């Protein structure tokens, strides 16, 4: 409660005994000054706390008295209290009903322990992810044998949300990447009067590398995070547990529809990104080196071998598989506290983008070695 009165503490001290004259309201809101005085007080002789004039007392007042009596006792000075009335005693007995035990602070573990623990967690995490993949594939083959269990409806719904709804953002990103690449190359190529090679530059770099990569990154940020959050929320509200008890396997109902949908959608999105990216390049080629659209397309037919396009499209399902698997896996790791959903969504996107880039690098090495 609000109180206008203040807490007072008068210290009368000599070598044989110290008297603490306490008065006023000893409550949470008024005790700051008294606590600051006591914090820096060095007792020299046994203390008597006279609380006869304390008009109001709450748990903060009692705690203050008990804390500093203990502190002084550690310095070898005993305290006693006089003038306590029934109310004071009742409150004291409620708060300190049994002997006070000091709770030691938990020790901070050493850096070596932390390093070991983190390493162990990482290794264990890889193991868990492999186990997740294993279980997913067991159920994949199971559904192949029982095609009636495949969730077609769910797959279609996910194709809509991860594919159709992603078109605008992919269009803008791919177009801008085309613009950027064209701008940078035009400047260099013009120095050699080799403007026409802009077509080769745009055609090959976009279809083979940039369109798949930019599509995968947008999808990881957009759909990967959504998958983790959706499954995480279901985990928190025990919906996953409910599904399991009803015999609905989460892999069949939640994981595979997302993975399959994304694997179908990704090559299509990459194709879409190819077109928009090349369009972006065409616009810049015309603006900067007066290369008309017809000339551009004519040249493109000559230089862009089918294999570049096919390699780009082929990466799609692989990227999609990685993104969908990682993000659903992270979704299942969400625990019951509210913070973990954000934590795992972040992790899922970071992991997905990393895996996509690593996978892309692997493709580059592999295809170069195969002379493709």
């Amino acid at each position, binding site marked *: *409660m*609000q109180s206008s009165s203040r807490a007072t503490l008068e210290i009368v001290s000599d070598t044989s005994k110290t008297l603490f004259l306490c008065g006023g309201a000893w*409550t*949470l*809101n008024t*005790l*700051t000054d008294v*606590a*600051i005085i006591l*914090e820096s007080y060095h007792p020299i002789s046994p203390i008597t706390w006279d609380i006869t004039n304390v008009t109001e007392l*709450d*748990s*903060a007042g*009692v*705690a*203050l008295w*008990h*804390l500093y009596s203990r502190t002084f006792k550690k310095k070898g000075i005993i305290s006693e209290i006089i003038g306590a009335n029934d109310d004071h005693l*009742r*409150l004291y007995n*409620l*708060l*300190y*009903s049994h002997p006070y*035990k000091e*709770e030691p602070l*938990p020790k901070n573990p050493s850096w070596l322990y932390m390093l070991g623990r983190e390493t162990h967690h990482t290794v264990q995490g890889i193991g868990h992810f492999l186990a997740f993949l294993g279980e997913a594939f067991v159920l994949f083959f199971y559904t192949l044998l029982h095609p009636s269990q495949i969730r077609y409806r769910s797959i279609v719904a996910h194709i809509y949300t991860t594919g159709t709804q992603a078109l605008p953002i992919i269009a803008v990103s791919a177009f801008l990447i085309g613009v950027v690449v064209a701008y940078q190359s035009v400047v260099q190529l013009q120095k050699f009067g080799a403007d026409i090679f802009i077509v080769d530059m745009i055609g090959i770099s976009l279809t083979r590398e940039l369109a798949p990569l930019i599509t995968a990154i947008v999808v990881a940020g957009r759909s990967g995070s959504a998958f983790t959050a959706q499954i995480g929320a279901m985990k928190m509200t025990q919906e996953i547990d409910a599904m399991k008890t009803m015999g609905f396997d989460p892999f069949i109902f939640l994981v595979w529809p997302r993975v399959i949908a994304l694997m179908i959608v990704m090559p299509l999105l990459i194709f879409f990104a190819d077109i928009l990216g090349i369009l972006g390049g065409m616009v810049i080629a015309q603006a900067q080196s007066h290369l008309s659209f017809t000339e551009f397309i004519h040249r493109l037919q000559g230089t862009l071998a089918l294999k570049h396009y096919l390699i780009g499209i082929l990466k799609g399902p692989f990227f999609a598989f990685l993104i969908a698997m990682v993000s659903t896996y992270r979704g299942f790791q969400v*625990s*019951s*506290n*509210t*913070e973990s959903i954000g934590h795992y969504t972040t992790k899922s996107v970071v992991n997905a983008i990393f895996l996509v880039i690593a996978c892309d690098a692997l493709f580059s090495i592999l295809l170069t070695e195969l002379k493709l």
Partner: protein
Amino acid sequence: MSPIIIKAHNIVTVLGENLIHDHISCTIRKNEIYALLGGSGSGKSTLLREMILLQRPQSGQLNVLGFDLKSITPIEAQNLRRQWGVLFQSGALYSSLSVGENIAMLYREYTDLPPNLINELVALKIDLVGLPPHARHLYPSQLSGGMIKRAALARALALDPKLLFLDEPTSGLDPLSSRQFDTLIRQLRDLLGLTVVMVTHDLDTIHHIIDRFALLGENKVIGEGTLEEVLQIDHPIVDYFFQKGSYGIQS
């Protein structure tokens, strides 16, 4: 008669299309344990939320600790909020903070006390609600249902409020823990001079610790008073709620 702490008069609440409260009135006095009862959807939690400034009624007067909630200024509201403690049904402990930090946060924000006095107070509150001392270092996700309720109660009691709101304090607890919780609430009321307002379904709680209550149903207050008084009322909801004549409370 002890002074009135909360007075609701002709409260009307409409949520979307639904009429929740149709001119509801009730009075809560100092130092009593008062309950808002009623079936699911009877608007008791809504009424509680209106008392703690989380929701506003469409019309009617609501007076808490002398403040008229309709014309309260933001500064007064802030003042009022420091004078009560609220225990939510699911605890609503901040999951990123340990139990100790959940409680200490209030002291840090609202007082300038030195850290070791705050530390002492946190230990006291944890002990007061019957949690073991090491619980202060645990995070909400590591606690059982009963411990969460106790930790949330400790947080509600942190600033030594005179008014305590409890939303289904015993739901999800086993019968023994429920009775212990009831006893704790009553002890705190007696010793700290609290006024307690709770929403509950628990017939044992109603029987053992509630002084007076309001029974809500059909958008109205069907009865207000002590258990004996309300049981006198002849109304199907009273019969249904207290399972009169079957295995419920005998009058």
